[in-house]
């Protein structure tokens, strides 16, 4: 049995090289699904749909293969998760108790770091001054540093307000870590937005620089920044 498989493997390698040329017929969907399955299993990091399309033979439909694969793994010990624009195989959370030998030591985050992370996630893109306004204290040295090192946050666009402050946004690793498909799936996001708690509201009539935040440029304006 293993002799056969090895041979088949070698043959395939010789024939197709790194990328099968487009002369070959498009593989059937069942085969595309196998390929996507193999790629996702092989990687510990999420793989983007674009990357999948690049690696599959020409003419394949990564999105459809993913949909098939997702329903195949529904309810299994390993499931297919969407992470932003990417996909990853992950063990089912209800089996966490089984996995004590794999469990990583989680770095304990300070309360300041946890709150700062939540504020960035729910208010993104958000400036340092806005984080401080919400928490009522200065962002302590090292908090932003730590979140960047964890690769949970990154720099976003500069804000088009006086001083053009840098903003922070959350990353795909953040989504992966917390099992979120996208930042829109943050728990309670809609309720918070409906309650107006995600609005940036300045102290009325302060006339300070913070006041300008109420006049965020509309989406379109960010294109101006491109030049």
């Amino acid at each position: 049995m293993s002799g056969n498989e090895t041979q088949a493997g070698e043959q395939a390698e010789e024939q197709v090289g790194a990328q099968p040329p487009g002369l070959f017929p498009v593989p059937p969907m069942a085969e595309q699904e196998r390929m996507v399955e193999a790629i996702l299993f092989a990687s510990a990091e999420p793989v983007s749909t674009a990357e999948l399309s690049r690696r599959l033979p020409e003419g394949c439909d990564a999105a459809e293969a993913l949909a098939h694969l997702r329903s195949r793994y529904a309810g299994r010990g390993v499931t297919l998760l969407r992470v932003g624009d990417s996909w990853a195989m992950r063990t089912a959370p209800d089996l966490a108790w089984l996995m004590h030998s794999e469990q990583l030591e989680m770095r304990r985050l300070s309360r300041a770091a946890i709150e700062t992370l939540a504020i960035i996630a729910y208010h993104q893109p958000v400036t340092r001054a806005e984080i401080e306004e919400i928490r009522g204290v200065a962002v302590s040295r090292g908090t932003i540093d730590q979140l960047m090192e964890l690769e949970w946050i990154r720099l976003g666009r500069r804000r088009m307000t006086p001083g053009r402050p840098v903003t922070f946004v959350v990353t795909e690793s953040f989504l992966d870590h917390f099992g979120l498909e996208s930042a829109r799936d943050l728990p309670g996001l809609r309720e918070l937005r409906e309650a107006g708690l995600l609005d940036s509201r300045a102290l009325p009539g302060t006339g300070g620089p913070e006041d300008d935040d109420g006049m965020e440029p509309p989406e379109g304006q960010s294109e101006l920044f491109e030049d």
Partner: protein
Amino acid sequence: MTASEAEEAFAGTGTDARLAEEALIVDVDGYEGPLDLLLTLARRQKVDLRQIPILQLAEQYLRFVEAARKLRIELAADYLVMAAWLAFLKSRLLLPPDPAEDGPSAEELAEHLAFQLERLEAMREAAARLMARDRLGRDFFARGAPEMVTVSRRTRYSASLLELMQAYARLRTRDEFRPYAYDRSDIYPLESALERLRGMLGHQGGWADLAQFLPPGWRAAGPRRRSALASTFAASLELAKQGRVELQQADTFAPIRLRPANRGGSGPA
């Protein structure tokens, strides 16, 4: 509010509440600033944050600050700034509105404070919910043995944004900023002096020696005291220029004394 009034206010709240109040003070280092403290006080009223009576909350906070003074506990400047602001808000809420005054009404200011408290509370809850989610490496897991087939070898260089920024900062600060971070510990910045002085003014009655406004830890004779004194003096000049304090010096080299400017005659002087 006098000390005895504060005591009364405490006595009125019953022994349990009083003990809780003292526990708050002892624990003041555990709070992350005045907003955090206000939120804790508000929570203890066990009412919906949207309905929080701001006047009552302001009184509680002021009582707290007063009690801390009485116990001779040094509160950071921002707690005092908040106290001054709440005292101002309280008086505005109690007085009939002045039609000649423009700017936000007392109700608007109170509403904004309530909003800030509610938002902070909401963010704390959101943070707790986030951290309670199933997490990678704790509750669910990635492939333990990712496969990398060794066929084609490509070298990729990696560098993180942090490394890039640190490299740049290292280059740009190589010469000019080297001693900066170290010397700083013995220099009391003007901004801090201003902030501290502003915060303390609300609680200052008559004339007081400038030296009394020096921050703790900077009072012993030496370069630190000189730096703090210089900054505090500069800050007092700035506030005098703004018409917020009056300065007095009886004689050359006599102690410089300071008191809040008389603000009874409303409007800037």
